[in-house]
Every structure is written in C-alpha cells, then in structure tokens.
C-alpha cells in the first residue's frame, strides 16, 4: 500500500526526516509516536502526498509519489481518509454536508443516499447534530465528524493525526474503538499520537505496530508496546 525506501524530507538544508524505510501493509494498524516536532505530521503528509520526499522514494498504492501529477494526487486522496487534529471543515456548511464533501467534490454524491449518510452520521453518534455547522460542535464531535468524512469514500488507508488531542479520555476510547472497528473491516490505520495510554488501550483490542520517530528517523519499528 505504502512503501518507503530511504525516504527523506527537509524544509531546508537539514532533513527533518531521513532514512525512512518501511511498508504499510493492507489491513495493518500502526501507531506513530515521538516527541512534539519530531516529524509525525510530516510523515503523515508524505503518506497522502501533501509533501513529496526530497530524498529516497515513496510508493503510494504502486505509484511513485514524486511522479504524481496534481490530478493523480487528488485521485489518490480518494483512497486515503485523513483526520487532522484541527479537523479542517468548511464552516459555512452543515455537518452532514461536510461529511459528504468527499462525495460532492468527486461527483459521486449519487452512490450514497440520504439513509446511508444518516447511518454513517449515526455510527459516529452525531445524528442529533447533523444540521449544526462545525463552529457549533465540540472538539469530540468535530473529531468524530472528521472520522466520518474520512471514511465516507470507503478508503483503503486512514491517517489520523493526534485524533484524541482535544478530547477527554472517554471520547478518546470511543474514537479508538471506531478506528479499530474500521481496521477489522480491512482498512489500514495509522494514528500519530504521543498518548501512550491510548496505545496501551489499543493493544487490548487490536494487533498494532508502533513506529517511533526520533532524531529524524524511525528508531524502532515492528515491536508491540
């Protein structure tokens, strides 16, 4: 699904990340840890081609990231669901339209009827809030809405950047359970977090692989926490 071979990325002369060599296999579950500023978000951005590697190679679904055109990247993102810490919604649209946005912009609104959409909104527990606009939602509601939007296109890969950063422990577990449920449906999940308690909680539910980024490199990989 995603293969990195000695991949590197840097904003200036000094690379922020280097020597990234790993494979994210279909149906796998990964945690990405490391101190703040270590490059977790940069790693995720490399996975959905918001950033392109400055060294080495990254293959995204069999395509070299550096060889992708802008339309190719847009098409690729239809196979990747991204949940940001700050969620990033269109504030002028109600929640239901925000969740359906990936379908709208790709001209696929017809593949999901209103009942299916309501079912998805219900799955993340936001039925009562479907007409609210994003600024009217709490942090936890926004995270769940972001997750619903991320999976509406039935992606193969879900990338979550600190999805529990702004929510309480109960909501963190709820989000984790949703992501585990998706993994059991065959989705590959990558969660960037520095919340070790969340990783321990996940261990009881799913076979997770932990990747630690430190000093610009993936220091340990493959071992369960």
């Amino acid at each position, binding site marked *: 699904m995603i293969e990195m071979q000695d991949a590197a990325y840097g904003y200036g002369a000094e690379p922020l990340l280097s020597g990234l060599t790993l494979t994210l296999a279909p149906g796998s579950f990964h945690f990405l840890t490391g101190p703040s500023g270590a490059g977790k978000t940069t790693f995720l951005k490399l996975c959905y081609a*918001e950033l392109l590697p400055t060294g080495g190679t990254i293959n995204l679904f069999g395509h070299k990231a550096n060889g992708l055109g802008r339309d190719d990247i847009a098409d690729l993102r239809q196979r990747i669901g991204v949940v940001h810490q700050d969620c990033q919604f269109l504030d002028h*649209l109600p929640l239901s339209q925000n969740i359906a*946005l990936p379908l709208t912009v790709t001209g696929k609104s017809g593949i999901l009827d209103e009942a299916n959409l309501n079912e998805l909104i219900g799955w993340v527990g936001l039925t009562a809030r479907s007409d609210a606009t994003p600024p009217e939602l709490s942090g936890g509601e926004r995270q769940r809405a972001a997750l619903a939007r991320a999976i509406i296109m039935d992606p193969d890969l879900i990338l979550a950047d600190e999805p529990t950063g702004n929510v309480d422990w109960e909501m963190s577990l709820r989000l984790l359970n949703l992501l585990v449920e998706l993994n059991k449906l065959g989705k590959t999940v990558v969660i960037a977090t520095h919340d070790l308690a969340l990783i321990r909680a996940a261990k009881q539910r799913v076979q997770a692989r932990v990747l630690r980024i430190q000093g610009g490199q993936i220091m340990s990989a493959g071992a369960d926490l």
Partner: protein
Amino acid sequence: MSIRDRLLSMLTGDGQADRVVPRSGQSARLTLATSAAMAFLAVFAMALSMASGRLADRWSSALAQTATIRISAPPAEMDTQTWAVLTVLEQTPGIQSARALTDEEQQALLAPWFGPDLPLDDLPIPRLVEVLETPEGYDSDGLRQRLAAEAPGAVLDDHDRWRRPLAEAAHRLRLLGWMALALILGATAAMVTLAAQAALSANEQVIRVLRLVGARDRYIAHAFVRRFTLRALTGALAGTIAGLVAVAILPSARDTAAVLTGLSFSGAGWLWPLVIPPLAAATAFMATRFAAFRTLRGLQ
C-alpha cells in the same frame, strides 16, 4: 472540453459545487461594480469609434471626384482665360464635365460672408470653374502644367489638401476608440484577476480542505470561475444598458451639426454594444481561470 462547452457549463452551473465555496461579499461587489463601470465606458468608446468611422467616411467621400479651378486675371482677359480653361478641360481625359459658375452662383457662395448685396462687377473676384471627374480620375499634375501654359491665371484646387487631414484625423479617432475599448477590456481583466485572487486568498483554508478530500484543481477553479464569470456578465449587462440609455439621450447631431454631438450609434450599430456583456464574461472567465490555477499550483 471545449471553451464553448465550458462557457455553457458556466451558465447551467452545479449547485453543489457552488455551495462549497462561501460567498465573499466584497469581491462580489467589486466585480459587479467594475464590470458595470467598464461596460458603461466601453459603450462610449464603441460609440466614439463608430461615430468617427462615419465621420471619416463622410469626409472622405464629400467633395471626392470634384475639383475647382480658380481664374484670377484682369477683367479684359477673364473671358479668354475661362474659355482656354474650359477647352483644356474638355480635352483632358478623366474629366466628366466642367462649367464656369455664374455670377449669381458666385454671389450666393460669398453671401454668408459679405451679404447679399455684394457688387461683383466692381470687385476683382476670381472666376470659379466647377470640375467633375470620371471614376477613373485625371492626372492632376499634367492638368496643372497645361493650365499654366494655356491660362496662367488658373489654379487647380482638387480639395485634397484639406480633405485628407480631416479624414485622417477621423480615422485616427476611430482607432483611438477601438484602443480605448481594448484598454477597458484589459483593465477589466486586471481588476477581475485582482478580485479573484483576493477571493482565492481569503478562501485558502477552504481550498486546502477541498484538496484534502480529493477535489481536483478543475473542480475548485470551476467554483470560483463560474461565480466571477456570472458576476462580470451581470455587471456588464447593467453597465451596457446604462451606457446605451446615456448615448440615446445625448443631443442629436442634426440639432446642432457639431462633431461631438454625433456620438451615437446608427441603425444596426445599436446592436454592437450587445457584444460587451459576453465579452466581459469571457474576459472574466479567462482572468479568473488564470488566477485560480496559478493560486492552486501554489497549494499541494
């Protein structure tokens, strides 16, 4: 997709695509006002150009294929020289007809300046001979040489000396009108580009979200381009109607016979300003498309 198809899809629209970009009041008003003002000015530029064209044609054709020969001679030689001039003209190829003006006709010509009671017999007034050319024309230099030999007091005036600068001035005025129209279109494109860039910058976060969820550049650009094209079309339509009304209520040329009051359209010329709104829309379409894709290229 051809440009025609793209313009058609602009008009038919996509409601869902329209909703993803929030409405931006300031840039909308700016585009509308700019397009209306520019279309208003464009109507005047077009009227100026067309009026100048008519003027140039009139001045070019007025007195064309006519000439005047002025004979200044002592009274005793006047008839002899007039006869010599008429004889020369009769033998010159390219001359259709020639005749000497009568005293009454000469008096009528001078009356506006000297009054009706001018004593022509007492004044050394030159004799005027009116000449009409054939369509092929005559050799004016050859005729001048023959007249100098046969009638030394005769001077040929083919009207070209004053007619040509006037016609050239009118032609240049027409060119100026078209240049003004081109400048107006250019200024419209620049202003719409600025307004579109402002709207795109204001909506950078929206664009990032759209890219994140898989929107192609064409989809995002289309949402902005359609909005600005329709605004430009609406504004230009209003400006054109206002401009046409303003031109229509200008004083008529027949009332004053002055050059500037002839600033109007004639006949089917009134239909020409109708091209301004589509032209403004096409300009906005291209300017916004250019601005949108340039902005999008800067965002991954």
